[in-house]
């Protein structure tokens, strides 16, 4: 392979990898406040993208995306209030099964609303043929949008969790639930907020990738598996590690595609997931063993 080819595969790997990272960050936000894996996370991306596509017919693109993010955020909050909060004797396993059920319901609802055709948002800038050249590789301008938005999301979240009162309160809930309540933090509200936040960033990620990958009602499941692999790879709950793990998986997939038939691409995530679960279940970057939360 020559340099332009390496760059081409590398950049495409980084692009999908950064999307996986955003999905994984969504998993982590909810995992940190509740101890559960929200298997409807992939659906948030698709709902966001689909809503934006529908809205873009009536309002300008930026407004459509903003609207889609807000609507999906509200949906995330609603799901928590209506389904998660009301589960009696809410064990972690029970809640996870609820989220699996929800992902199926959302997917079927989307099938009815948007049918099985793939849709896509228009390119944010330029057209599908607008490219920029980086070290001999030609990439779509939309790729830069994906990378930029992913970087902004991760940075904004990091600042939010570190420097805002609400962000700190959410971290406090994941650290020690009882102590958080004794500080006056309403832990139930923090859980709702974590669902809203995950849904919102998921929707935004869904919108930026839509022009490249197109959006189909059932794509959430694949994204969820990739995101889950990345979250486990980085160590559940660790968002910075998830970014590194996301880029790693994206590049690995690109490498496999460059050497073998592209059909093997989907196998990569599953193989990585199995290997990590067998050999390093607490993640590549874990300093201490991940214990099951009993929040």
């Amino acid at each position, binding site marked *: 392979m020559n340099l332009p080819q390496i760059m081409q595969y590398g950049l495409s790997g980084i692009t999908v990898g950064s999307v996986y990272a955003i999905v994984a960050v969504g998993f982590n936000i909810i995992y940190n406040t509740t101890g559960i894996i929200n298997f409807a996370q992939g659906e948030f991306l698709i709902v966001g993208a689909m809503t934006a596509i529908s809205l873009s017919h009536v309002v300008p693109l930026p407004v459509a995306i903003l609207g889609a993010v807000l609507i999906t955020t509200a949906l995330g909050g609603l799901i928590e209030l209506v389904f998660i909060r009301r589960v009696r004797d809410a064990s972690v396993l029970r809640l996870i099964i609820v989220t699996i059920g929800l992902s199926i319901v959302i997917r079927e609802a989307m099938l009815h609303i948007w049918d099985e055709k793939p849709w896509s948002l228009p390119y944010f800038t330029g057209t599908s043929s607008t490219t920029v050249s980086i070290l001999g590789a030609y990439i779509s301008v939309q790729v830069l949008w994906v990378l930029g938005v992913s970087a902004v999301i991760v940075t904004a979240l990091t600042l939010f969790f570190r420097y805002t*009162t609400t962000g*700190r*309160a959410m971290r406090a809930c994941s650290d020690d639930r009882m*102590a958080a309540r*004794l500080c*006056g933090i309403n832990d139930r509200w923090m859980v709702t907020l974590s669902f809203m936040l995950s849904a919102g960033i998921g929707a935004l990620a869904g919108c930026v990738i839509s022009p490249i990958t197109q959006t189909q009602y059932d794509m959430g499941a694949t994204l969820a598996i990739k995101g889950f692999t990345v979250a486990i790879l980085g160590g559940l709950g660790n968002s910075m590690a998830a970014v590194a793990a996301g880029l790693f998986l994206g590049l690995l997939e690109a490498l496999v595609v460059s050497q073998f038939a592209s059909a093997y691409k989907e196998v990569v995530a599953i193989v990585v997931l199995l290997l990590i679960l067998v050999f390093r279940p607490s993640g590549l970057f874990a300093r201490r063993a991940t214990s099951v939360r009993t929040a």
Partner: protein
Amino acid sequence: MLKILNLDAGYGALRVLKGISLHVSPGEAVAVIGANGAGKTTLLKAIAGVLKPHAGEIVFDKRNILGRPAERIVRLGCCLVPEGRHVFSSMTVRENLLLGAYCRRRENTAASVQEGLEQVYDLFGILKERSSQLAGTLSGGQQQMLAIGRALMSRPKLLMMDEPSLGVAPLVVRDIYETIVTLKRNGLTILLVEQNARAALAVADRGYVIETGQIVLQGPSRQLSDNPEVQRAYLGKEYRRIDE
């Protein structure tokens, strides 16, 4: 300030507290002593709202707080330093203290929070030195100081402490108790629960002795320390009587 009548509480079908009644007046320091498993921690958890009591009455500052959630009770000024400290171990000392002020976030200003921090740092100098260190890396005694400091950041009217001497080096226990005396002198109302009866009765005005979920004895601290039953059971004196 705090008045408890016939409180029943426990875990599921297990009844730990059986009709506890006690009161704490403003400015007073009250100790609740008793053996392991007597229900001391359950009592404080029930008052703080972490545990939902089965029956009874808890009146704090003329409001009935029975069954209210913990986050609302701390906002009223009734704050618990839980047993085992429960600091946020993955967060820095400073962040822990700032979270202590969370319940007052609507009335807080940057200046009032800073003032609170300074007061805590004055009380526990070590926390200022370690302010950017993760709470999980502190020693047991420092974590206890942090837990107390975090509670003080909420500017409580009543400070409840559950076993502040547990798992803390004896020298540090003395420091912590000296701080409790200081807090009391500054007018803070204190409800203290301890297995370490000697330390608790030394700082408290009054005390209650709790056994298997019931108050078996109460009175001024001096009177309790002089009581032969208390001395035998909780202060480790006159052990010969047991041999006889």
